[in-house]
């Protein structure tokens, strides 16, 4: 409140130290702590300099504090908001319900049906309009992580930041021959592909559209520079080649908290199934899905994968 008295020199009620009572006209400096030694009489110029330096200092300190605020917002708050918004989108994404069995014995609990894998020609939806959510993705390997929405486009402001995973426009849709290429944040904004580096060859990647499950399995990964767009070609890394396989590609930033390179995971369609026939066995026990017990199982059956690499 008031400046300390120097050697018994009175302090004026405004709080500005007046070091010499004989200088009543001396202007009050902006910062009372800036008062120099009691012997030197502060000139007007002196006061202005000290006042200005004080204000600049305070502004710089304030800017520093606000920069920490930006870090907190970017690294924490965008995740809080993104997780909430994306969970809501997944909740709102109405798909066919997963059926349950009708108990044959009275009192027996209904069980969740397990989908029978199909390897014939899968249904393929048309690409929707920009920013429309048309599927969800869930990776059982990412234990504790629920399904994330996939929307059309990879624009940050309208898709990746508010809606999670984006689908590269012009690449194939789920189930189609070619490459269903997606992008997701590795960090911040709900970070849907945060744990992409944990994926191992053979791991299931489960896509759910309105009507259909598409179970892909990881076949390879690579780390590329952002301009290596060949990774999303119909035949990954071989642009112009005619595709024969049904691939999925997940791209995200690497290293974490940097946009220097891209972590790319490729997968191939293992099987598909209508949602009305049941749930893929791979999803049992994962977040937001029925447990093994709900489906009447005690342990995960051995893989039904037709792809190598397990």
């Amino acid at each position: 409140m008031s400046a300390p008295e120097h050697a018994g020199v009175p302090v004026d009620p405004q709080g500005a130290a007046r070091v010499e009572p004989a200088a009543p006209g001396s202007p009050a400096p902006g910062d009372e702590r800036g008062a120099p030694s009691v012997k030197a009489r502060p000139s007007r110029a002196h006061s202005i300099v000290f006042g200005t330096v004080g204000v600049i200092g305070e502004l710089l300190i304030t800017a520093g504090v606000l920069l920490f605020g930006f870090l907190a917002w970017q690294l924490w708050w965008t995740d809080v908001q993104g997780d909430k918004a994306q969970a809501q989108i997944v909740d709102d994404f109405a798909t066919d319900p997963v059926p349950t069995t009708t108990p044959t014995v009275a009192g027996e609990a209904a069980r969740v049906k397990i989908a029978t894998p199909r390897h014939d020609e899968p249904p393929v939806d048309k690409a929707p309009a920009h920013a429309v959510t048309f599927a969800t993705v869930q990776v059982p390997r990412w234990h504790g992580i629920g399904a994330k929405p996939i929307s059309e486009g990879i624009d940050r402001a309208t898709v990746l930041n508010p809606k999670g995973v984006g689908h590269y426009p012009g690449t194939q849709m789920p189930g189609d021959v070619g490459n269903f290429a997606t992008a997701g944040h590795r960090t911040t904004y709900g970070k849907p592909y945060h744990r992409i580096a944990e994926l191992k060859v053979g791991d299931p990647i489960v896509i759910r559209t309105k009507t259909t499950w598409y179970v892909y399995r990881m076949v390879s990964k690579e780390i590329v520079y952002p301009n290596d767009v060949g990774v999303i070609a119909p035949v990954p890394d071989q642009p112009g080649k005619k595709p024969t396989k049904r691939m999925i590609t997940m791209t995200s930033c690497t290293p974490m908290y940097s946009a220097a390179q891209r972590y790319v995971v490729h997968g191939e369609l293992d099987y598909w199934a209508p949602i009305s026939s049941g749930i893929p066995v791979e999803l049992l026990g994962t977040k937001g899905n029925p447990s093994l017990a709900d489906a009447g199982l005690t342990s995960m059956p051995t893989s039904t994968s037709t792809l190598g690499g397990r």
Partner: protein
Amino acid sequence: MYAWLWRHLPGPVAVRVLILLVLAAAVLVACFAWVYPALAPLMPFNDTTVGN
């Protein structure tokens, strides 16, 4: 700057501290709601998509 602000706040110390805390919280909320989202696209580490 802050000394000036302090001198111009009304009331006893407790009231002034309270007002300052409310002001600081308001600044932070404004930053989270508008300032940081507006700044984020300008940051190099957020430039994740290859230019069109």
